């Protein structure tokens, strides 16, 4: 058992996408420092239900930092701002007794709010659908070892591929830009030899879709990297820019 905290929560409540929304305040008393942030919200929600009120809606699934479902801005920092940590892995021992914690949804035009802290991130899926794949039919592939991949490339590709698609980068970016996410996706595949045939097409198509979804532009402010729970590097944005530039010169358009 850890220590107990009494906290005040200032939480964004919004009934549906059309509701303008508002902040509401709740007391969270007797919070064990061993709880995760989401478990703290669970406790608050149990109390709300018992009072006959509607609980705070928030997304979560794996609760171990890998599925990318959880998504909330805690005191102005997506996922709360612990290095390399998702909201579900953030624990209450990082908070102080008596604190007021402000909790808001990801804010981005491309991530409309469904309810309270739950947002619609299908724009990320559509970016993937535009080109975030290698076109191989099931079965029509060579032996896995027929194409050696230099270890350094595979490792770097893995660094990019770790992105959990949570959207914290968008939430953190002052321009609500999805560049870090798209860069991670494009870089992962463009670093693998298997990804070469569609390299140009992919970069062009995914960026086009990113634009169409209404994300902002990258102005190289770097907050995304700070907020990314998988610590995806800004280098991948440079890499995307490079890939995109080459693709533009070679192909011009999707």
């Amino acid at each position, binding site marked *: 058992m850890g220590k107990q905290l009494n906290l005040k929560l200032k939480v964004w409540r919004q009934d549906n996408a059309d509701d303008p929304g508002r902040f509401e305040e709740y007391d969270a008393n007797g919070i064990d420092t*061993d709880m995760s942030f989401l478990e703290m919200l669970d406790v608050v929600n149990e109390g709300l*239900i018992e009072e006959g009120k509607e609980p705070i809606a928030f997304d979560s*699934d794996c609760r*171990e930092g890998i599925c990318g479902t959880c998504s909330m801005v805690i005191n102005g920092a997506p996922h709360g701002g612990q290095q390399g940590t998702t909201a579900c892995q953030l624990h209450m021992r990082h908070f102080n007794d008596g604190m007021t914690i402000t909790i808001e949804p990801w804010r981005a035009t491309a991530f409309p709010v469904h*309810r309270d802290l739950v947002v619609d991130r299908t724009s990320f899926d559509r970016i993937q659908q*535009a080109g975030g794949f290698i076109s191989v039919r*099931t079965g029509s592939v060579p032996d*896995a070892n027929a194409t050696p991949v230099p270890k350094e490339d595979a490792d770097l590709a893995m660094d990019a591929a770790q992105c959990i698609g949570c959207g914290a980068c968008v939430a953190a970016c002052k321009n609500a830009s999805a560049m870090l996410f798209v860069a991670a996706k494009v870089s992962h595949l463009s670093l693998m030899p*298997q990804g070469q045939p569609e390299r140009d097409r992919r970069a062009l198509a995914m960026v086009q879709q990113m634009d169409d979804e209404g994300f902002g532009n990258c102005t190289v402010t770097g907050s995304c990297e700070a907020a990314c729970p998988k610590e995806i590097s800004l280098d991948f944005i440079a890499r995307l820019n490079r890939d995109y530039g080459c693709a533009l010169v070679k192909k011009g358009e999707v």
Partner: protein
Amino acid sequence: MNLDAHIPSGPMAQKWDKHRFDLKLVNPANKRKYEVIVVGSGLAGASAAASLAELGYNVHCFCYQDSPRRAHSIAAQGGINAAKNYQNDGDSVYRLFYDTVKGGDYRSREANVYRLAQVSANIIDQCAAQGVPFAREYGGLLANRSFGGAQVSRTFYARGQTGQQLLLGAYSALSRQIGLGKVTMHTRSEMLDVVLVDGHAKGIVVRDMVTGEISRHSAHAVVLATGGYGNVFYLSTNAMGCNVTATHRAHKRGAAFANPCYTQIHPTCIPVSGDHQSKLTLMSESLRNDGRVWVPKSQEVANQIRKGELKASDVADVDRDYFLERKYPSFGNLVPRDVASRNAKEACDDGRGVVPSGLGVYLDFADSINRMGEGAVRERYGNLFDMYEKITGSNAYQNPMTIYPAVHYTMGGLWVDYNLMSNVPGLYVIGEANFSDHGANRLGASALMQGLADGYFVLPYTIGQYLAEVGPDDRPSADSSEFAGVEEEVRGRIDRMLSIKGRRTPTSFHRELGQIMWEKCGMARDAAGLEEAIQKIPALREEFWSNLNVPGENGSLNQSLELAGRVADFLEFGELMCRDALQRAESCGGHFRTEHQTEEGEARRDDENFSFVGAWEYKGEGNAPELHKEDLQYEEVKMTQRSYK
């Protein structure tokens, strides 16, 4: 009930080839006239949906998450097995087959397992071609590690995130098909029932989790790939949303549920820290390679540790009980999952647990740090130590880790034949949701393999047989009375849950059920406890339906309502599990009946009487379900008793 497994005749090694030749094919031009529903977008669902769409079928894929990429397959850490023999260490299809049957404690179907081993190699090829960044050697070829006590290195991995990378591979294939318009993806959509028309599965009823809209979807065939039911225990390593709803609803519509009592408990999870705990976190088994498991020899010392009066380092070596090393000198800390788990439980039941709740043992790296230095330990396990510190706030380089077993995987599932079709025609079940390949215990790194085998390489062939048989016209309208009737029932249930307005939250029922299940049907089970549970669960269910409090309404995003629906199904399903555990009066794999153990406390199988698949038929509200048996024949592998002494 017809439990014909439709196993092809002929020698084991040729069954699958022969079967593929015998299967009917759908005329390529006709494929676009078929609609297939795939529920689930995990490894099994995503790979199946993508592959079916590539073949030309029109696919509707459903998942409850906001994106197909978030299915719980994403959480698998360790790796995926394949009989590639890239290490030249004597692996082969036959060896993987043999290990899996043996590992499953001789309760799986040989022919299915053999096929699994056969297609395992194709999976790695497929994933590599999709750009999955598997670990590589400096020469650029794929790296392997040995996993879960296997004698050969056949596990492929991508750092500690293999499931994630494989799922992203399948998701990319799925995304491509969505982009091409061949798959229609329905996210944040929970399947609440199956619709049968003339005894064939022809559709599902779904709730849109954002708007609350209930919709009907009809198709030529329905594929369930909805994962495992570990959350019946409330606390498990499964994701919050994992549920039994899809499979249990299908069961209630006539599909047999096989071996529900087979659950796997993983020994190295982070212990429960308090009542608030919402889920448990697994830490890779590889930790046991260099960590030593112990508890104090005396209860008194353990008690002082629990109170915080003593630290682990205060306990002298002679006062420590390295119980795995003591009891299993040759395997030591590397005994299989179930053995390690059970021994930890025994130590804690003996009052020697070392965390405040009493349910935790040490996993100590002090010796390894002395031997190879902190740097080497950090290199090997750094990310796991970091994760441990994130969750517990304790530095495992300085203090030993504390671990406790947790529910991790469910071998049981809907009964399927060799074609992965349940006993309901047109209803296919793949991935963790079916029962087929792991018997009573799953080997590490084999679930990912099975999910992808089913989705990429088995179902796309076998479903063709059924579709060819029924023809392109056999798709009833969603306006038919069958669909309307099921929708009516679904709405009725939802309205009922919303109208009770009692005093208890869905979570409180879930937690209470979980406690019953964990205590009576967990790591060790006995007849008395199971009978008690079979009494208690219906009472809890009754309270649920009279004292439940679900705020809000159906017509919006309502997470309490979603949870209540899942808990309602767990409350029915938990009882079935206990019945199955009671029925199986033997110990095998993950199912340990304390009455059935050897003198040394090992699981004792009863091959004479229990060498069968226990498949349960639903008999209607208030009636006991009926057990059917599919006998297991072992042609290739000789049954032996496991021993890790």
